[in-house]
């Protein structure tokens, strides 16, 4: 025990030293506007504070680790049945949420936002969690989906329901074309190149004025209708209003609730797809490839095509989510598709435990829902975000719920 305590103290001291070295140029000096012009002033108390906080923090973390060491790094695998029940309970709750007394329009709106990220997380999970391809440019396909819908609907006057599958297909097509050169690379390179691709798509959107409207984006995007029934106060000519058809009083809430159910359905579709495909040979090959590429080769699997299929499938779901985003906002611009978005989606997948469907829901609630709630504390959002990530990674290095259920039991084997 004595040895451990010493190691802890050394670690804390080292941490403090590094913090001091970094803080010295960043916090320790500043320009002072004196009588004789600008001069360089010191702020060394700040440096000491920074070093002290870091050293104390490391000490605390180390001590926590020592006391928690006996308990193991991750939760024991919850039984399969429990996961299923929790899943169904969550679905049931999501279904009645808009009709609960405390759920106002604002809450449904926020829940819609969380669900977008749940869907994106589930989509990216196919690529990162199942196939093990670290994709840092996922937002590119989200953007392709959004712009596909906006452009198809504005140029050809196609309805949302027609554009949705088209946008998914276009995004998947982009996934195939971009994935082909990328997926020959190995691990870390894939991450770097996909990150670059994501930025390239954004830059193209920003500069291709004639088509995408450049930085101004596209506005006045057609809102969805309920099987042809409009949610507008005054339905366009030749169509009827939703409220009128069902004999309700007009309310702007109808559209909000409809959008909520729409994204809920899309997200559940993504989940259902993932659960199904894991039992099929393609899905199994994705997982096997993540585990051991060499073994897969020696079983006659062509890694490139298997990776491409995962990449394109993930892209397709991002495309669906993108067109939903466009129809919900009514306005899109390249600003909505920055690297930050990719990072958040990836954080959701990693935090959720790489491959755990419910873990992703929890992570999306935590990373998207909570910050939305505390919007008043704007300036501290990123700080809290970073802090939460660090804490969770310390507490559960393999994600909130890192269990993998066998996709198949003997009774349902093919």
């Amino acid at each position: 025990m004595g040895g451990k305590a010493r190691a802890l103290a050394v670690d804390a001291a080292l941490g403090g030293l590094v913090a001091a070295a970094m803080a010295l140029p960043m916090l320790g000096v500043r320009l002072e506007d004196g009588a004789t012009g600008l001069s360089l002033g010191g702020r060394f108390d700040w440096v000491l504070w920074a070093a002290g906080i870091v050293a104390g923090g490391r000490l605390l973390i180390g001590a926590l680790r020592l006391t928690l060491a006996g308990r193991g790094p991750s939760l024991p695998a919850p039984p399969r049945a429990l996961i299923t029940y929790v899943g169904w309970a969550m679905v049931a709750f999501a279904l009645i949420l808009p009709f609960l007394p405390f759920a106002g329009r604002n809450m449904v709106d926020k829940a819609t936002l969380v669900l977008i990220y749940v869907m994106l997380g589930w989509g990216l999970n196919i690529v990162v969690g199942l196939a093990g391809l670290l994709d840092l440019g996922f937002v590119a396909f989200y953007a392709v989906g959004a712009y596909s819908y906006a452009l198809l609907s504005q140029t050809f006057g196609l309805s949302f329901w027609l554009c949705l599958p088209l946008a998914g297909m276009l995004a998947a097509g982009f996934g195939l074309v971009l994935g082909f050169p990328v997926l020959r690379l190995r691990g870390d390179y894939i991450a770097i190149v996909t990150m670059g691709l994501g930025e390239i798509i954004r830059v193209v959107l920003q500069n291709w004025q004639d088509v995408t409207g450049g930085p101004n984006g596209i506005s006045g995007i057609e809102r969805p209708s309920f099987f042809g029934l409009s949610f507008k106060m005054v339905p366009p000519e030749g169509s009827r209003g939703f409220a009128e058809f069902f004999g309700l009083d007009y309310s702007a809430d109808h559209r909000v609730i409809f959008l909520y159910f729409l994204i809920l359905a899309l997200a559940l579709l993504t989940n259902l797809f993932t659960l199904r495909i894991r039992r099929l040979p393609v899905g199994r090959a994705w997982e096997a490839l993540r585990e051991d590429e060499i073994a897969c080769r020696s079983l006659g699997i062509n890694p490139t095509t298997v990776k491409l299929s995962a990449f394109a499938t993930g892209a397709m779901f991002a495309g669906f989510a993108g067109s939903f985003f466009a129809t919900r906002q009514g306005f899109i611009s390249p600003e909505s598709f920055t690297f930050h978005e990719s990072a958040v989606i990836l954080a959701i997948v990693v935090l959720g435990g790489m491959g755990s469907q419910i873990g992703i829901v929890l992570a999306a609630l935590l990373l998207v829902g909570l910050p939305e709630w505390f919007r008043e504390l704007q300036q501290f959002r990123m700080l809290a975000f970073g802090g939460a990530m660090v804490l969770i990674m310390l507490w559960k290095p393999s994600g909130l719920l890192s269990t993998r259920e066998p996709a198949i039991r003997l009774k349902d084997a093919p």
Partner: protein
Amino acid sequence: MLRIEGLQSGYGRIQALHGVDISVAEGEIVALVGANGAGKTTLLMTICGNPRASAGRVVLAGEDITGLATHHIMRRGLAHSPEGRRIFPRMSVLENLQMGAAMADPAHFAQDLERVLGLFPRLAERLHQRGGTLSGGEQQMLAIGRALMSRPKILLLDEPSLGLAPLVVRQIFEIVAEINREQGVTVFLVEQNAFHALKLAHRGYVMVNGKVTMSGTGAELLANEEIRAHYLGGGHG
């Protein structure tokens, strides 16, 4: 069945195989023995197309497969149980076996599964256990079983005895003999455990520094003085 002619191969500028000639007839068990770093694993990997051969030919059932991509080679009745087993640790035993059948006709999956589980009853008891939690011997059984799921005509085995207790080694070699005898699968076995391998095999080759230096029937090689001295540690048993 499998003919290797003047095969050269290596990694980048390092050449590991300097012209290897080996042939394996249908229905045979052939063993290749050699010390660490002799190039045994490299030979099996080169047969499977990764790394590609820099010279020479690999002929499988009359067809030249030398330049083909791995996934094409592996669909031609050849199966490979790689060095270190390489099972999928987070997937269940059943899923591992399903991966082995990835390229096979799904219509005879049930039949193949039954056949493999018949050979390895230990796996049948552990169908839903994760591959990574199996014991070393069970993992080796799984690796061989997985390779058999594609109904190969020829099976390449890379050091199935690696890290296993003598009793388990004997068990596994008995099963390999059974696979060969009852199911007519040709076996090309690479081993450091020369004693067991040569006892099992009909014929054997000895590899030193990327070249074949000796060949003969299993019994001949076992009786050979030089081999006894170098590979059998004075003929233990």
